[in-house]
């Protein structure tokens, strides 16, 4: 059945993302990855469902929490681990690290650690697509906190004024570091977008990869026809904001809030499918880690390259 094939494809990629990040957790105490990591464990279905619904030429502009989008868009796994290791074999030669993954060859156009800062980049790419009569679309990926920044509003306004082919994709995990959304936002995201004349949709079942994919396919079709769209997808960040640990002991959120989400999480619920796919994916990850281990560290010759 066709849907079954799609589901297995999505599941496989989502599991790969989770296993990659679990490997990052294992490696982290060794200090081989010497940079902050923002894990997307719990949020994989969003990256996987969205990227699967996009064309290979469509562009994604992402955030510091983008291991998932990097993998889902098709970035090389070995170059990713080498990047986390800060090695010359890394996708950016070790100058980017976890927070700045990019893979322009597959349409991941950079990720930024300054919240909301890549949203206008997606608008700019969409402007160029429109200027040149391209059928490509641009996707701005951001968290719920980013929508509080002024540049998000500037971006919505301009995109709608110019009728640009851009999908605004909000990963709503309800948290900005440790602050909950109700204390930060006086608006509902889709209502707010509607004030600009931009249609939107909120998807509550952000664990459902097929639902995310379907919602993105519908949104992307509208965007490709020449108008912005806001897609807000509820999700859950299992780990701490930055780092590889849990943070329930700080009592800013309850373990139950995450446990409730996990009861829907297909990577947990469908344990047998995960177990079946796991050996192959782990071999893939081991090869990528071995590549990173073997890659040399950059030094003085690289220190001042590509500054301008």
């Amino acid at each position, binding site marked *: 059945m066709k849907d079954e094939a799609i589901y297995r494809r999505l599941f496989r990629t989502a599991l790969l993302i989770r296993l990659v990040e679990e490997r990052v957790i294992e490696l982290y105490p060794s200090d081989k990855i010497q940079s902050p990591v923002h894990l997307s464990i719990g949020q994989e279905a969003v990256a996987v469902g969205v990227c699967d619904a996009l064309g290979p030429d469509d*562009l994604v*502009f992402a955030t510091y929490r983008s291991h998932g989008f990097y993998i889902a868009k098709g970035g090389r796994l070995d170059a990713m681990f080498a990047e986390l290791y800060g090695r010359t074999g*890394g*996708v*950016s*030669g*070790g*100058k*980017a690290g976890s927070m*700045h993954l*990019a893979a*322009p060859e597959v349409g991941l*156009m*950079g990720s*930024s650690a*300054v919240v909301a*800062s*890549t*949203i*206008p*980049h*997606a*608008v*700019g*790419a*969409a*402007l*160029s*697509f429109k*200027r040149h009569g391209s059928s490509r679309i*641009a996707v701005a990926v951001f968290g719920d906190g980013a929508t509080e920044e*002024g*540049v998000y509003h*500037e*971006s919505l*306004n*301009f995109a709608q*004024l110019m009728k640009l082919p851009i999908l605004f994709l909000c990963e709503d995990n309800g948290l900005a570091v440790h602050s909950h959304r109700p204390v930060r936002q006086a608006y509902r995201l889709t209502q707010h977008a509607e004030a600009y004349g931009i249609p939107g949709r909120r998807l509550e079942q952000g664990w459902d990869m097929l639902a995310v994919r379907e919602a993105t396919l519908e949104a992307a079709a509208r965007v490709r026809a020449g108008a912005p769209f806001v897609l807000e997808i509820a999700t859950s960040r299992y780990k701490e904001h930055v780092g590889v640990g849990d943070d329930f002991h700080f009592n800013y959120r309850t373990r139950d809030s995450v446990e409730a989400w996990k009861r829907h999480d297909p990577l947990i619920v469908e344990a047998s499918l995960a177990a079946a796919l796991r050996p192959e994916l782990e071999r893939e990850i081991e090869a990528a880690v071995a590549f990173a281990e073997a890659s040399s560290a950059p030094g003085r010759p690289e220190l001042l*390259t*590509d*500054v*301008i």
Partner: protein
Amino acid sequence: MSVATAKPLGQSARVLSYAGALLETMDAALAQHPSVFIMGQGVDDFKGIFGSTTGLAEKYGAARVFDVPLMEEGMTGIAIGSALVGDYPITTHIRADFSFLAMNQIINLAAKYSYMFGGLMRCPMLIRIVVGRSWGQGAQHSQSPQATFAHYPGLTVVMPSSSQAILDMYPAIINRHPGPVISIEHRLLYNLEFTVSPAAQRVPLTTYVARRGNDVTVVATSVMVLEALRAAQYAEDKAGVSAEIIDLNSISHPDWEVVAASVRKTGRLVIADTSWLEYGVAAEVCRQLMVRDTRLLNQPPTMLGMAPAPCPTAKSLEDIYYPSQHETVDAILTQVKGRDHGIDLPVERSMTEGYKRFRGPF
């Protein structure tokens, strides 16, 4: 009279206003490269950024030259995004002060993208910002942020001081430069006419000797190059003092050897910048000379810049806030002949008197 004026002057040389040079280079870039577009507040209106974009929207269409909402950060981010996919954006800020609203995109993003992604991402683009001065510009329409921007690796910062500098630099920037460039244009220069030769007469994006001399070196930026040239002529006429004027031109990547060679020859130094001295161009010039050879200067240098306060609006205060022609001449003469040089100084205490055609409001 049109702001953008061009008069023929023989076969190769001609007279061209600063605004006219800007308009010519903008026009040529749009004509030559389909990837080029210009966006900014008012670029397509009847004032056309003080005449530097007038008529271009009509000529090239609204997809190439267009007005934007009041969104400096958004506009700059949009420019970066379009540059990342191969277009060449030119953005404008009619006052440099407004570019501070775009600081996040300029400093955290544009300046970083080439390096941070190991050369994977490039955002070549031109950000044109205009410094205001006189006629009560006040504290928020007068700032000259070259030191601020040049501090950050990844940005190329230039300050064209003449029509020739624009003709030489802008095509090179737009055609070939791999990264973001901030050009700090000066409002006082826009209506001035300069004699220009065919473009690409000089190597772009570097430092020029604007006037040869032997007694004292004056390192100047932007409109202060003109002030220094006027002062040098006065000093020569009145006192036979021969001042060498260096137009720094490229603020982020000057040719420091040109500066050092001049100071090695003269042993005396005046620095004339359009901004504050503290942690600025003046400080950097001194640092560059000091690390080369502590004996380059025979005596302490003289520095001219804005007084260490926000810019006042009242004309009587503004006139003493900026270095005047009087003070520029005095600096040159003091360096060469000592504090008690006894030579009459020009009576012009207000710079606007030297720029008769500059009139507000605008």
